[in-house]
């Protein structure tokens, strides 16, 4: 009984571990050899899958863009244009400034995150088992030492990178639209303000603290929401996958429910990006 539990938990652990790569004194090292390589570790599965999916997104949309006609569109173009219009409408409704970046940014986030989330619907054991098989046959590795996490958005590095990108843009837009002074003013002069200069001096640190927390909370919530939803979903898929034959109906139910989560989380990430950037580029106070 105890041995079985260890196997289950190690199975889960195996599923939740990224394939790592780092450079050591002896050259490139992988996985367990990277246990204490610190920050300079690369999750090669996350990188490969996310960049691969990103390239698929760009390839699909670029080929639609190349063939796009202003006349009667084909079915493929119609589908792509539906996505473009969905994103474009949301951007126009929410972001009232004039920016050539927001719409393509939102489109990239929406489709890319959607494709990465979609990997969650591939049965959890297929690709890791296949990778283990290839590792064993081609490189003579122990299949338990081959790690493969195929959903990039269950890696906090991925979601944090997206959120960080949005955060940098938020600050950039704030400074560009309101000026550096306006941006600092927004951080320090609200929500508490006073006519009395002395009181104001006391209030400024409080404001700075509150506003900085509010500002930093945005990218954190962005990153952790997506990560948390997908990580939990993945976790449940793994658990369902471990209970034997009964997994089939449960898998189906959870997958159907997860379809919604996948689209919704991609949409929410996009929408919040637009909202945050819209807030960053309007003078609210």
């Amino acid at each position, binding site marked *: 009984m105890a041995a079985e539990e260890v196997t289950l938990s190690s199975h889960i652990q195996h599923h939740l571990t*990224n394939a790592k790569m780092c450079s050591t004194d002896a050259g490139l090292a992988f996985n367990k050899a990277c246990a204490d390589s610190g920050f300079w570790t690369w999750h090669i599965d996350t*990188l490969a899958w996310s960049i691969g999916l990103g390239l698929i997104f760009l390839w699909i949309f670029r080929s639609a*863009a190349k063939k*796009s006609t202003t006349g009667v569109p084909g079915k493929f173009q119609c589908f792509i244009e539906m996505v*473009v219009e969905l994103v474009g409408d949301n951007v126009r409704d929410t972001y009232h400034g004039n920016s050539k970046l927001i*719409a393509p940014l939102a489109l990239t986030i929406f489709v890319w995150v959607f494709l990465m989330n979609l990997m969650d619907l591939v049965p959890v054991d297929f690709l890791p088992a296949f990778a283990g098989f290839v590792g064993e046959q081609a490189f003579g590795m122990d299949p338990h030492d081959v790690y493969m996490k195929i959903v990039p958005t269950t*890696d*906090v590095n*991925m979601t944090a990178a997206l959120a960080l990108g949005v955060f940098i843009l938020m600050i950039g837009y704030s400074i560009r639209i309101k000026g550096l002074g306006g941006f600092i003013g927004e951080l320090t002069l609200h929500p508490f303000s006073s006519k009395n200069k002395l009181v104001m001096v006391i209030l400024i640190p409080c404001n700075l603290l509150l506003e900085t927390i509010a500002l930093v909370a945005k990218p954190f919530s962005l990153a952790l929401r997506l990560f948390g939803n997908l990580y939990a979903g993945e976790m449940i898929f793994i658990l369902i996958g471990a209970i034997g034959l009964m997994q089939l109906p449960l898998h189906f139910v959870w997958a159907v429910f997860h379809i919604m989560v996948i689209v919704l989380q991609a949409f929410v990430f996009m929408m919040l990006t637009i909202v945050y950037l819209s807030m960053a580029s309007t003078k609210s106070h």
Partner: protein
Amino acid sequence: MNLNATLIGELIAFTVFVLFCMKYVWPPLNGAIEARQKKIEDGLAASDKAEKDLELAREKAAEELKEAKTQAAEIIEQAKKRATLIVDEETTRGQQEREKIIAQGHSEIESERNRVKEELRQQVATLAVVGAEKILEREIDQAAHSDIVEKLVAEL
């Protein structure tokens, strides 16, 4: 939660994807959509305008037809009036001509009668005189009785 260099890698990938999308994906797709929207809008406007034009043309045609009908009726009416007028005029003229011709005939007849009467009277006078001469040749001197003969002639 172990943040590591993957974050940097993904950040770079994200930036590159967004830039590519901004340069090569969004503008042509959005441009195509907007151009098509413009086209459809123009098409609808043109069809509206054409419909209005058609309605206008129809109204104009109906109006012109009505006008033409009125004009035709007027012309026919005028022609009828004129025809009546001409007939009346001709009738009057014919009547006058007739009367004139009749009057002329009458006067000619009258003058002929007068002439014939005169001639007859002359001839009767001459005959009377000749007759009387014949009678008187034997009885009376012509000169002595000429005043009686003259009186007779005048009485004829």
